């Protein structure tokens, strides 16, 4: 079973992503703030972490930088989830060391396909 941590303050988006990921058989953890997300990431060492860029406590970018620098978190796939324009999202993802990004709003099938694709690329 794949462990997924969602760091997302928007309850609608968090619920939607959780439900889609659980439907695909993954174990899901949700944090509404960046600090809480880092604590859960250390405890659970998730395989995938989805990080919203706009969080109420820490910037999503700072959260990713902290996760990447934290040995206790392991080596998860980190995906930026953002409503930022695609060019900015890509730039941020590359600069901060996330493995890719998913644009919001997303279509259900696109979201599921992207998660599968990230998992497959890691298995290869």
């Amino acid at each position, binding site marked *: 079973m794949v462990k997924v941590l969602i760091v997302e*303050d*928007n309850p609608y988006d968090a619920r939607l992503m959780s439900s889609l990921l659980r439907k695909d058989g993954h174990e899901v953890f949700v944090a509404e*703030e960046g600090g809480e997300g880092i604590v859960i990431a250390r405890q659970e060492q998730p395989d995938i972490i989805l990080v919203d*860029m*706009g*969080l*109420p*406590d*820490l*910037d999503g*970018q*700072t959260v990713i*930088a*902290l996760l*990447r*620098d934290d040995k206790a978190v392991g080596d998860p796939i980190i995906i930026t989830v953002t*409503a*930022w*324009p695609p060019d*900015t999202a890509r*730039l*941020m993802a590359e*600069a*901060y*060391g996330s493995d890719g990004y998913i644009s919001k709003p997303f279509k259900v099938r696109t979201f599921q396909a992207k998660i599968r694709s990230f998992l497959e690329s890691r298995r290869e």
Partner: protein
Amino acid sequence: MSAQRLSLAPLTVRPASEFSLKILTDIYNRARIDYIIPMPMSVRRMEEYLRFYDVDLSRSAVAEAGGELLGVGMLGVRPDRTWITRLGVIPAKRRRGVGRALMRHFIRESRNLGVSRIILEVIKGNVAAHRLFHRYDFREQRELLILRRPPIMPRFDAPAYEAELLYGEAVFALLEKRTTTPSWLDDLPSLRKVGGMHALRVTLRNGGCGWIAFHLQPYQLSRLVIEVEEGDNEAVTRALLHSLHTRYPRHDTKLENLPADSHYRQSLEAVGYFVAFTRIEMVKWLSYA
């Protein structure tokens, strides 16, 4: 509430001071949910924001119709100027005059204060907001860049220098001598309130010197202000940035509101800073004739 009920209920603009911070934060987050660069806030962050930027809640406003909250906006007040900020309308309630009602309220409040100008910032690409501000005679003043530098950037070289770390009033003594024009966010009244401001003063062997002020937080450096006092601009700026990032190598860095034509921009980009997005600073001059 249905569109029909909303259209029947009169739109009212109430002072934001009538609402709790929790309600203000909630309506702000809901209004900005689809914003071009979403910047949600917690209650704690909202409280800090109001304090740092001299937001007057009695002059800030919440738009309401039939008991339903539709939008929010805040007004910062400083000598001879006001600042419109955190303006947003709930997505489903847009195109019904809510933004216009809030703008008229802020212009009226600013006139009541007798200030000479109203300032605001709009994210470049937010066409609807930009159009709204034009409608009320706000004009573009300059472009302001929001730059980031991740902590994973490689190290870089700099000319030999000596650095001194400053904090407390020594930092503000430097900021008082700043020669660049600050935005509302990094103007002295804001920086005095945030706490935790530090500065590094650097002297090169050839006599070049300057300083960089910054807000030091556990994971992030922000509110950077750079000033080259003597010598080659590029060499001194590079030494300042080298001093900063070798002292705090694991900090994420955010530099807000650097003027797009700043002569420090090139040196910043050469050591890993990049433009995340751009704001346009707009101003409306008020006449009282």
